[in-house]
């Protein structure tokens, strides 16, 4: 028995080192998207390998919560994969400044992406880009088409219409107008403030002004969305203060709520779990005729491990990621995660297609706390969670909330100091 055990261990050790040696001639992609494993293995990678038969490539995901720590450890130990899936902004910037990611500046494929997409994986001054943008998620409202037909309302275009729709659904009484809770606080900030906000702070223009220090979080454009949020409370379900994120999802997919403020990443799950027809409308315009801005949050990119022995092959893959073929393949395989390239692509999922269609009339922007301004204490993004929930709960006035954010930011962020 013991003999078998030791030989078993020896064999597995040998196998381990063998696969290690083998890995050197094969590209590995590090990722946290373990949900997408089969999509990569069955759809995306075969398509690439068909065009490049000389390259072997493997998708090797880690659980999302462990990804950052595991990746760091692997890179430090020199065993990281050739291609690294990049978290947006500071997570990857940190890897780049430690020298783990290669500077991709000058790669032709990067020209296929708009600046707002590349910004998530560029240094603060924009002199280096270290990951090829892959996917973004778009914020908006998903609604229950059956419920809308039953109550007799149309998807709203402006804020005034939006409130009228909520009122009508509430008066009808069969549905909870909106499924959202404030227990997890994250929902209030991401699906509330960051969802409707860009319309008011004018997308990138407002966001960049905060980063540059020329705008303040107490400016009108940043207070208004809080004022809108303050009006949401009465339209949420009973006891929404103790409703968590999974609660809201379930409430909506059970067909008990009419509107779900959210984002495109829910599409796959909602398609699976709901048995009514889903629709989506974009965040309401402040007033008829205003220009439109959507939160098109850059979420996933892929970069090159600076220590990769297969850099040449890996570069070929990165080049391919800029093609229309990849954009269409990926966006269709993972509905709700949209390619960031400039190519016009067609999607088979109607809901995903609705979301991506907004890019035509609206300007894209990132979540406002994502770049640079969340590096200090107090952390701006955390504060946004707390004050957004407070505002919806009626515990803080919109002006107060904005003041708190500005005060916190200006306490450590040089360009915002008076």
């Amino acid at each position, binding site marked *: 028995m013991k003999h078998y055990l030791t030989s078993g261990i020896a064999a597995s050790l040998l196998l381990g080192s063998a696969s290690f040696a083998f890995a050197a001639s094969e590209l590995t992609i590090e990722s946290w998207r373990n949900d997408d494993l089969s999509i990569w293995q069955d759809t995306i990678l075969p398509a690439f390998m068909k065009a490049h038969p000389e390259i072997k490539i493997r998708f090797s995901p880690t659980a999302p919560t462990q990804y950052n720590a595991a990746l760091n450890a692997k890179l430090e130990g020199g065993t990281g994969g050739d291609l690294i899936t990049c978290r947006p902004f500071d997570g990857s910037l940190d890897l780049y400044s430690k020298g783990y990611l290669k500077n991709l500046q000058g790669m032709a494929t990067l020209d296929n992406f708009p600046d707002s997409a590349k910004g998530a994986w560029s240094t603060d001054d924009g002199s280096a880009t270290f990951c090829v943008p892959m996917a973004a998620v778009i914020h908006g409202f998903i609604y229950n088409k059956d419920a809308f037909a039953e109550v007799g309302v149309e998807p709203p275009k402006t804020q005034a219409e939006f409130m009228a729709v909520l009122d009508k659904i509430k008066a009808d009484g069969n549905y909870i107008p909106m499924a959202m809770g404030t*227990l997890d606080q*994250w929902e209030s900030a991401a699906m509330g403030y960051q969802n409707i906000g860009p319309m008011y702070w004018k997308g990138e223009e407002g966001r960049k002004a905060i980063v540059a220090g020329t705008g303040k979080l107490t400016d009108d454009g940043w207070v208004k969305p809080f004022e809108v949020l303050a009006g949401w409370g009465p339209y949420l379900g009973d*006891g929404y203060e103790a409703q968590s994120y999974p609660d809201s999802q379930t409430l909506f997919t059970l067909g008990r709520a009419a509107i779900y403020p959210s984002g495109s990443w829910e599409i796959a799950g909602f398609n699976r779990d709901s048995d009514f027809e889903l629709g989506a409308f974009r965040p309401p315009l402040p007033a008829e005729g205003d220009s439109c801005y959507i939160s098109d949050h850059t979420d996933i990119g892929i970069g090159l491990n600076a220590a990769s022995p297969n850099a040449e092959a890996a570069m070929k893959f990165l080049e391919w990621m800029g093609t229309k073929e990849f954009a269409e393949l990926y966006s269709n395989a993972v509905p709700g995660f949209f390619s960031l390239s400039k190519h016009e692509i067609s999607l088979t999922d109607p809901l995903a297609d609705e979301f991506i269609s907004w890019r035509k009339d609206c300007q894209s922007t990132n979540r406002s706390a994502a770049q640079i301004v969340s590096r200090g204490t107090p952390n701006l993004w*955390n504060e946004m969670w*707390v004050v957004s*929930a407070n505002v919806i709960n009626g515990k803080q006035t919109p002006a107060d909330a904005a003041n708190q954010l500005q005060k916190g930011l200006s306490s450590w962020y040089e360009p915002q100091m008076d």
Partner: protein
Amino acid sequence: MELEQDLMVSERKKKPFRWHVLVFLAPAVIVYTMIMILPLAETLRFSFFQRDTITQAISFVGLENYIKLFFDPYWVEPFLNSLWNNCYFFLIHMLVQNPIGILIAALLSMVHLPGKKLYRIAIFMPTLLSFVVVGFVWKLMLSPLWGVSKGLMKSVGVGSWYLPFLGKEETALTTLSLISVWQFIGIPMMLIYAALLSIPDEVIEAAECDGVTGISQFFKIKLVLILPTIGIISILTFVGNFNAFDLIYTTQGPLAGPNFSTDLLGTILYRTFYGQQLQPGDPNMGAAIATVMFFIILTGVAIYLFFIQRKLTRYEM
């Protein structure tokens, strides 16, 4: 004179170095040093360093982390808030968990109580459950959407008192304290129960002969005899409460909402050390908080040992 020398020599002969003492102590000392003392010392050392945000180099900064923690309003306010919440959390346990624990133990130690074993097991059971399970189950029961609590309260006529308990600043911390009480009430119950059983029958019989029975017997005889155990329980509760983290994290998330009303020292430590979404983790500052927590707990235990435990009279039974 000679005799004295003889004695000394013989004494020296009598006491060779007792190696076996070291040998027997070694395993405990080594293990304890490895898993307790070294990490503690390392944490303390860590708290004197800080990573430079630009060069990424870690350098010695002396007391800077502590100065920041105690004087920077953005650190000291959340810290004091969590310290206060923690004291409240502890207070609820002392006021609810321990008295009820004693009461249940007293009831269980009654001679003629049917189903004694069943109660004992049922009440002790939650202690064995994982925090995650407890947090999840209670969150579900208290949920305004699917929870049973609303219906239960209605059925006994207090439906109008129902609130989304975990979502209100005013009620969240009290609710979580009571959940924790529910989970851990088995510990004081068991300890007190054991202490009550160990009271010799002669003492009780003597009391009965003197006409001290029933409730007054409990307060005048039994409670006095189990006071040292109550002291131990208080200190266990104190240490447990000031290290609490899991329950808050599983029910309220890392930001201990609403509006940090359930933030405990443990959650603020976790957030600081490991970071939270866009907040980068700061292990050095985290180590400083952990060190302060350690000293808070140490102070509490020391106060108990030097001022309270000495005054407790222990009766030989």
